[in-house]
């Protein structure tokens, strides 16, 4: 997960140096400097090279849901510090810093909404909050999102963006993989649609649990997807990694991804898959 942080830190310092007023953004794909308003109109995709900038959970929600409307649930869940974890910083300080930065209490936003009239229970992860890492709160909120799908018999959509399980909650974070996957077993038995959407990056504990378990898996182009981090793999095997390794395209080529969708088509693609799989109840009275 460290190299995500490095990349992010790099980006921040770049922005500070080169675009002090925030009007311009330098593309990480082609290095072109783009007027921010143009970037916003293009849904934060570079008009020159199609690089998909990472966007936060609120922007994803606006993009995907009908009228951009989400009825939020479980907003008050907040991380405790059961291990009293401390490295160079206290875990509690990291949480507070991320809460200030994002305005949310943890790394996922959940609720009910609809996509092209299909009601959905949706969870959208937020990388800005400690790298989208999954601790007890993320695990619990995902679990409740799955349960809302089961209770209401409506499709589940999870948009992942995460470096994996949150180290600061130790074994409790690992168990969130088991918790969410066990509930997805119940969802699958009830034949309820689950669409897993992968954005850059989705790796490690999140990839090795709910993100991999969608009936249909859709990813944005060139997202980093995989189990182990590229640096760990490189160190283990002692050789360079092939070009495009662990990209969405690589993932699809090897059979683990249904659809690669550009951001502008994401809502449409999800909507199609929802309509192909979801049969609304016959009468509203039921």
């Amino acid at each position, binding site marked *: 997960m460290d190299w995500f942080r490095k990349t992010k830190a790099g980006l921040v310092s770049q922005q500070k140096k080169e675009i002090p007023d925030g009007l311009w953004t330098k593309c990480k794909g082609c290095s072109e400097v783009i007027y921010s308003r143009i970037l916003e109109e293009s849904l934060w995709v570079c008009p020159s090279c199609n690089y998909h900038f990472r966007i936060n959970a609120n922007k994803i929600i606006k993009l995907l849901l009908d009228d951009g409307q989400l009825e939020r649930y479980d907003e008050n869940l907040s991380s405790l510090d059961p*291990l009293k974890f401390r490295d160079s910083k206290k875990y509690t300080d990291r949480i507070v810093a991320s809460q200030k930065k994002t305005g949310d209490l943890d790394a996922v936003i959940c609720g009910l909404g609809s996509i092209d009239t299909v009601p959905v229970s949706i969870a959208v992860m937020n990388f800005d909050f400690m790298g989208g890492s999954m601790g007890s709160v993320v*695990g619990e909120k995902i679990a409740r999102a799955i349960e809302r799908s089961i209770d209401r018999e409506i499709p589940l959509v999870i948009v992942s963006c995460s470096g994996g*399980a949150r180290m600061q909650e130790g074994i409790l974070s690992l168990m969130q993989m088991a918790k969410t*996957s066990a509930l997805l*077993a119940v969802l699958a038995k009830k034949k309820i649609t689950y669409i897993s959407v992968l954005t850059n990056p989705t790796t490690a504990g999140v990839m090795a649990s709910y993100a991999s378990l969608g009936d249909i898996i859709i990813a944005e182009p060139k997202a980093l997807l995989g189990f182990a981090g590229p640096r760990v793999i490189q160190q*283990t095997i002692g050789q360079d990694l092939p070009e495009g390794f662990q990209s969405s395209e*690589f993932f699809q080529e090897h059979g683990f991804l249904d659809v690669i969708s550009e951001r502008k088509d994401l809502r449409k693609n999800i909507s199609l898959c929802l309509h192909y799989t979801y049969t609304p109840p016959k009468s509203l009275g039921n």
Partner: protein
Amino acid sequence: MIEGPYLDFEKPILDLEKKISDMVEFSQAENIELDSEIKSLRGKLKKLQDNIFAELSRWQRVQLARHPKRPYTLDYIKMISTDFVQLHGDRYFADDKAMVCGFARIDGRPVMFIGQQKGRDTKSKLHRNFGMANPEGYRKALRCMHMANKFGRPIIILIDTPGAFPGIGAEERGQAESIARNLREMANLEVPIIITIIGEGASGGALGIGLGDRVFMLENSWYSVISPEGCSAILWRDAAKAPEAAEALKLVAKDVEALGLIDGLIPEPEGGAHRDPEMTARNLKGYILKSLEEVDQLEPAELLKNRILKYRRMGVYSE
């Protein structure tokens, strides 16, 4: 007496043991009566052991969990069961030597064993890929678990891995998918699943065969979201800070038990499982048999409901 490789903190014990055995030999060879001296040294040895092992740091326990002489999965299968028939291959790609599966009998009762396997010398370590399974290992495990389910046999799982293998081929063949699928499928199997962490329980690689009705840890095993080395490399930016990371991660059996995430801690002989593998195996077998007796009472629907509830409750947060 211990022979072969040992850990730093075992050294004073080994030295004293050597002294005692030399004295015993000397007294027998020369026919000199040294009983009281020997007895006093044995008392001193006991005290020394008590002191060293009462105050083991988490990092020292991690060392014990990795002890080169520690019993591995196949050792326990041999000690607690009979007539083991190993089953090979995932039916898609290969036979992963880091994962062993097969039928055996515990006190006459047929069960399916699943577990990671480490090697002991350089050659067997490489053969077993250091206990780090590839996707085909998790898929072989799932194939055998489905078979156990089909024939109504309980599944006994022994976890001992430094992690799922981080390699190019592992990613190409879907390491994440293989682990995720196991988690979901294991939540659906209608036979009892009894799990014990016998050595190292590193992250998704351990959990990939780790969802079941009862989960135990041997006293000197560890179970964590990430290895101490991995954690220290990321958060301390220094792999040498692994002892600090081990403390912070609270990863030993006592910690995980205190968090309420396991069903019990299986005692090991003082000094670790390798000091008396047979005793450790007897303890392990006792826990497995008792657990089977408990879950045998349950109808499949109740078994599954309890299993899902067990994991549903895990997590610490405020609301």
